[in-house]
Every structure is written in C-alpha cells, then in structure tokens.
C-alpha cells in the first residue's frame, strides 16, 4: 500500500549516494520494480486508488517540473533526483490517503518523515551543536505526529504552524531571486509533507 521500508530504503540510499556517484541512481530501479510487483498482489480497490494516484502524480509532476524547466536557471542532477523521489512519495501518499485509516496513515507518514529529517540532519551536520539545533525540527514532527493521532485539531495546528513557518521563508526567499533546486527541495520534501499531514490530521477516524 504505502511505500514499504525496503522500497523507501532504496529511494533514500539512491538519493543520498547519487551525489557521490551517479551510478547509484540505478538503485531507484529496485524500488520501481518492487512497486510494480506489489501491484499484482493488491485487490481491485487498492489497484483502482493506486491507478488514480498515478494519474494525479503525473499531472502534478508535469505541472511542477515544467515550471522548473521554464523558470530555473539550470536543471541539474538534484532536480532529476527530486523528480523520481517526489514521484514515489506523491504517488504513495495520494493512494494511502484513501487506503489507510487516519491514525495509521499519520503514524506512518509522520513517523517516517520525522525520522528522515533527523537522519538527514545528522548526516549533513554530524553530532555538532548545529546538528542538535536542526534536529529540533525532526523531534517536533515526531511529537506533532504523536499529538495528531490523539487530537485532531491540536495535530492540525502543530503541523500547520511548522508548514506555515517554512512556507513564509520559502515565499520570502522566492521573492528575492530565481527558483533554485534548493528551494524546490524545501517545497517538495518539507512543506508538502507537512501540509499533507496537517490535512490528514483534520480527517475524522473511520473504522475501516
């Protein structure tokens, strides 16, 4: 249903290591193969929602990346990586929205997102003072996840507040200059998941 840990591992490892050697991009194929094989084992309803998510994903990626190609000064390796990684994330989030119960969805998405933020923080800054300060974001996301599972409005407020915080700085920096892949990364991999989580927090739990 949602990205399996194995698939996610391939995507994260490929995204991290491609900067060192472009050959690691081939690891994306393992995740893609797993995703395709999984489809054969789903029932018709899950396949229906996954197919619908594919259509929306293509539309969103197409619109977003056509803007990127049109307005950024150069389209680099990071942008190509983002195209694949965000495609994976978006497809799975859009289908999980209909397939998983609210609490399970928030637990998985919030949990994985918070852990990834912590992982990337310590990988980029190490166990330094800067690393510990930035890790506050990951801890905040994990705490907001814990809150959102229990209290809808409180969870929505916490996720919206941090999404709004990043969105403010994103718009501010966008107003200053051109659209860069760094800014694009903030939008796709930080702001979008936070907005998604805040919307999901508002969802009422239904017994499936």
């Amino acid at each position, binding site marked *: 249903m949602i990205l399996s840990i194995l698939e996610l591992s391939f995507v994260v490892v490929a995204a991290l290591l491609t900067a060192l050697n472009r050959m690691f991009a081939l690891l994306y194929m393992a995740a893609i193969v797993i995703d395709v094989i999984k489809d054969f084992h789903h*029932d*018709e*309803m*899950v396949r*229906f929602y996954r197919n619908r998510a594919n259509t929306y994903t293509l539309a969103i990626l197409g619109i977003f990346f056509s803007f990127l190609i049109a307005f950024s000064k150069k389209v680099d390796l990071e942008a190509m990586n983002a195209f694949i990684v965000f495609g994976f994330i978006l497809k799975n989030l859009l289908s999980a929205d209909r*397939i998983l119960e609210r609490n399970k969805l928030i637990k998985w998405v919030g949990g994985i997102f918070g852990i990834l933020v912590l992982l990337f923080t310590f990988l980029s800054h190490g166990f330094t003072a800067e690393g510990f300060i930035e890790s506050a974001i990951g801890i905040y996301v994990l705490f907001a996840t814990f809150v959102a599972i229990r209290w809808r409005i409180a969870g929505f407020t916490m996720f919206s507040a941090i999404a709004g915080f990043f969105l403010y700085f994103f718009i501010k920096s966008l107003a200053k200059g051109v659209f860069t892949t760094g800014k694009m990364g903030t939008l796709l991999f930080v702001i979008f998941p936070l907005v998604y989580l805040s919307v999901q927090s508002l969802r009422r739990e239904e017994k*499936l």
Partner: protein
Amino acid sequence: MKMMIKLREIRAQLGITQEELAKKVGVSRQTINYIERGKYKPTVILALKIAKVLNKNVEEIFVLEESDWE
C-alpha cells in the same frame, strides 16, 4: 453516482461477516467495507462474485437510482 447498495443489510440477514465475504470473493475486508459505505463501486466481475456468494441477483444488492441517469 449514487447507486444504492444493500450489501450490508443482505450480509447481516445471512449472518456473514465482512471478513468471510471478503475471503470468498478474494478481496480485502476493507474493500467490502468501502463498497458497503458506497465509497467504492466494484467492477462487474466483483459485483457478480458477491451476488453469487450471497445467492442473490446483482440488482438486489446494487440498485440504480433515478439520479444515476442524470
């Protein structure tokens, strides 16, 4: 599409659980739940399988409403 679905009441009358029905027609319990709540419209094949398992005609379980023609 607002098709009326009588699956829940028919299933209850026959004393079959969602889990049992799901197993017999080869889908997840969640799919049966979504069909009963009108959130998912099954394919013709699945509708026919459900009708066969419940020993009913498809039209007894899935009923077209006037508004479906609009």
